[in-house]
């Protein structure tokens, strides 16, 4: 067991964590360690064996493992240390000292203690100079939507089923109904068909799809899988193994409409009803969590309410594309390394970002203006006509053909424009029809 001082400790070796490791090394941090609870690196991308990753970053269509392989290789070459089968189970933080003392922490104060466990190393306490939270997100379970009925085997989140099929090589069932139209559900619909199973249909309670249009086309339409909007599962049947579900149309208030119920025979129900940033550790670390995103409140340096704690990727806000997650990981790792080296000024600007019209959630919530930044956002309601994303006052305008909750939008803010406007009090982002 080494007692070498870790400069930047990264929790989670998915796309955000691996990129953060690269970012931290490139910034000059000496000891950069990425912890991973699974036995291999790559996070959820390990089980995403379908193509479609990296179109922006590499301009080619890669599978999840291929995409990760490129980053992991780069990280190895950069000298990032990885520890697999290592779980963080406790984080203790010192509250930061008040601002204006040069650094946010007084001399000798350890900002964070991270407790880890691993079969070979046992239980250890690490005291890094900065940490980056890259734990990703998890799937909403059935209980979150409180569907009445029995509790048989055969109900899985789409991601759990994907792990069984793609990593263990076992099928969760022969005839599936998919509830929710998040991307993993759509991908798994196609995957089940490829494996010779039946998919009776995909049911989405909203009047718009949860996932990307391209996945609706490539995973459902191409295989003739029926897609039912404004329809949900209202009851679960079966004692031992799932025997079927009742589905029903819903009204505008998402209440089932009487008389529209239909029994669907199936042995498997896959859930793709949303992803939630995984922030158990963030809460333990005492950092501020945003009530809408469910992730840490961050500035554009991806620094949380604790200056020594950074966060990136789906742990902050759930992204559509892995490319964005990697980009954010890189930024967080770079700034964590700067912080650990005492090179990140605590005297930054803190301009709040406000969500205006038709913006349901966004990140980051504060902008320093230190460098160019992207504010990622999702709309509340779809706009199926020409529209625009704006960041006021006059910081950004982008015309769009449409705006949909299932597809993220961006506002790109130039540092030069922030610098040119020293009295800037807030940035308001809107998505409006033209």
């Amino acid at each position, binding site marked *: 067991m080494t007692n070498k001082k870790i400069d930047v400790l990264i929790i989670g070796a998915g796309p955000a964590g691996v990129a953060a490791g690269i970012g931290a090394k490139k910034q000059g941090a000496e000891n950069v360690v990425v912890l991973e609870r699974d036995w291999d690196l790559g996070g959820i991308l390990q089980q995403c064996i379908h193509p479609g990753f990296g179109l922006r970053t590499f301009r080619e269509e890669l599978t999840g493992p291929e995409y990760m392989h490129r980053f992991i290789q780069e990280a190895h070459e950069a000298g990032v240390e990885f520890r697999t089968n290592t*779980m963080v189970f406790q984080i203790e933080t010192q509250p930061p000292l008040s601002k204006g003392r040069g650094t946010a922490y007084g001399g000798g104060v350890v900002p964070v203690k991270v407790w880890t466990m691993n079969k070979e190393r*046992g239980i250890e306490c690490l005291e890094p100079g900065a940490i980056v939270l890259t734990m990703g997100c998890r799937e909403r379970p059935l209980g979150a939507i409180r569907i009445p009925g029995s509790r048989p085997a055969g109900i899985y*989140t789409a991601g759990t089923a994907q792990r069984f099929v793609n990593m263990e090589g076992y099928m969760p069932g022969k005839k599936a109904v998919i509830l929710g139209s998040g991307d993993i559900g759509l991908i798994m619909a196609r995957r089940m068909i490829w494996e*010779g199973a039946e998919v009776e249909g995909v049911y989405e309670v909203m009047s718009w799809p949860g996932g990307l249009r391209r996945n609706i086309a490539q995973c459902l339409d191409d295989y003739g899988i029926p897609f039912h909007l404004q329809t949900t599962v209202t009851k679960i049947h079966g004692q031992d193994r799932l025997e079927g579900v009742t589905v029903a149309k819903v009204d505008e208030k998402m209440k089932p409409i009487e008389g529209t119920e239909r029994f669907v025979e199936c042995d498997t129900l896959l859930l793709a009803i949303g992803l939630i940033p995984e922030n158990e550790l963030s809460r333990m670390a005492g950092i501020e969590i945003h009530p809408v995103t469910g992730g840490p409140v961050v500035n554009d340096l991806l620094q949380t309410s604790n200056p020594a704690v950074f966060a990136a990727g789906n742990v902050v806000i759930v992204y559509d594309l892995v490319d964005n997650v990697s980009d954010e990981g890189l930024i967080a790792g770079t700034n964590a390394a700067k912080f650990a080296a005492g090179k990140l000024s605590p005297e930054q600007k803190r301009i709040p970002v406000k969500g205006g019209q038709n913006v349901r959630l966004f990140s980051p919530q504060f902008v320093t203006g230190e460098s160019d930044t992207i504010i990622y956002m999702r709309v509340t309601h779809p706009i199926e006509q020409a529209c625009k994303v704006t960041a006021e006052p006059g910081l950004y305008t982008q015309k769009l053909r449409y705006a949909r909750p299932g597809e993220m939008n961006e506002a790109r803010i130039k540092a030069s424009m922030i610098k040119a406007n020293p009295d800037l009090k807030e940035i308001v982002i809107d998505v409006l029809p033209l």
Partner: protein
Amino acid sequence: MNYDVIIIGSGVTGSAIARELSRYKLKIAVLDKASELPSGASRANSSMIHGGFDDEPGTVKSKFCVAGNKLWHKLKDELDVHLDECGSYVCAFNDKEAKHLEELLAQGKANGVPGVEIISGDKLREKEPKASVEIIAGLYAPEAAIINNFEAVNALIESAKINGAELFLETLVTGLLFDDEKNIRGVSTNKGEFLAPVVINAGGVHAGEIASWAGDTSFKIIPTKGEYFLLDRTTQGFIHSFLFSCPSKAGKGVTVLQTAEGNLMAGPTATEQEDPEDRSTTPEGLAEVLKGARRLVPDFPINLNITTFAGVRANTESGDFEISVLKNPRGFVNVAGIKSPGFTSAPAIAEHIAGLLKEELADRIKLTPNEKFIPTRKNIPRFLYLNMEERQELAKNDPAYAQIVCRCETVTEGQVLEAIRRGARTVTAVKMMTRAGTGRCQGGFCCPRVVEILSRELNIPLDEITRHGGESKLLVGKTKEFLLNK
């Protein structure tokens, strides 16, 4: 197979009886159709160790509840079971209900419940700030407690097993066997015959049917469903104890409580039904629970719900426990209708049953004390609750305790392996014994890992592992198999 006594059902009642009888030199068989413990009403209930003021003096229930409460406070240490000695409050919203509290207080005193008192609404809210401002008074019972019911049943049966009792799971009793004098000889099951001169019917919702095989139709079990919400453990401390609505004829009404593990919970309903096995939740039932929960705790954070469930309790027409030794056939004992406060009463009922066997069935069974009786049993280490030194020590001695399987409840592989060593064969059994899968992701993370460990340790293929026995297989075959068969 020959035994001295057969206990049908390993719910809290059957398990407590098995453990009590294991104090004597007896060959005991406990039979249960389920694949893991607890199942039935002992799994899905409010996990309450009642104070004992609810039951009308003179009823069978009133006798056992207060005694059972005392026993649990002792058993928690002997059996290493998590008991939150938090007390309970019955909440009155109006003068009529406040008056009812006085009746309950008098009843409590008559039953010998220690420390019960009526407190003002404000005093109640000092203890439970989230309780409704409309509560005008409360009946406080300091000895009421909340138990980890999964642990408790497993602890009782393990203790019985340590002292020689045998447990047979997935063993469905299909009939009774009689000797030439038409007295009890044993039972027939799907796994063959089990012979014993004494059969104890602790069959829960099926106890009425089983009694009828012995010709006893003096009582009827009315399966009564109770539905619940269980919330994320981040709700810990939202309330600290157990809040009752004012009881009515329909039952104790919806309650809000913090489980022994710190989850917020609300329920139950009381809906009579035909099917003793229908444990499905319903839109109406859940709506009723939510309404009741919000009445007691207006800010009840239902958005943090992680699962809904229902239990079916064995109600009777009399509303009381049905405990009897049949005169004919000889050797048949009913311990039936053990609904609320059944969990509380179980250890006291068990002592009573031992007494009954001595007094009334001495010709068939001899209760000689077992001098080697070991009263204690150690729980599987609970990593979540250990301090850092204890954790390090555990991990040093067995590296499996340095590998997390369930991230929500911080359950290690070491705990899962120990559960398997103690008899877990299904994913639900592991859940009952370790809490893996009881957290906010409801097994999304740990289910594949638990399946893998079960498969590896028991040396059976992944697709043979079940959720809860029977046909509840989790996987249906290897990938590509369907394609090849098409």
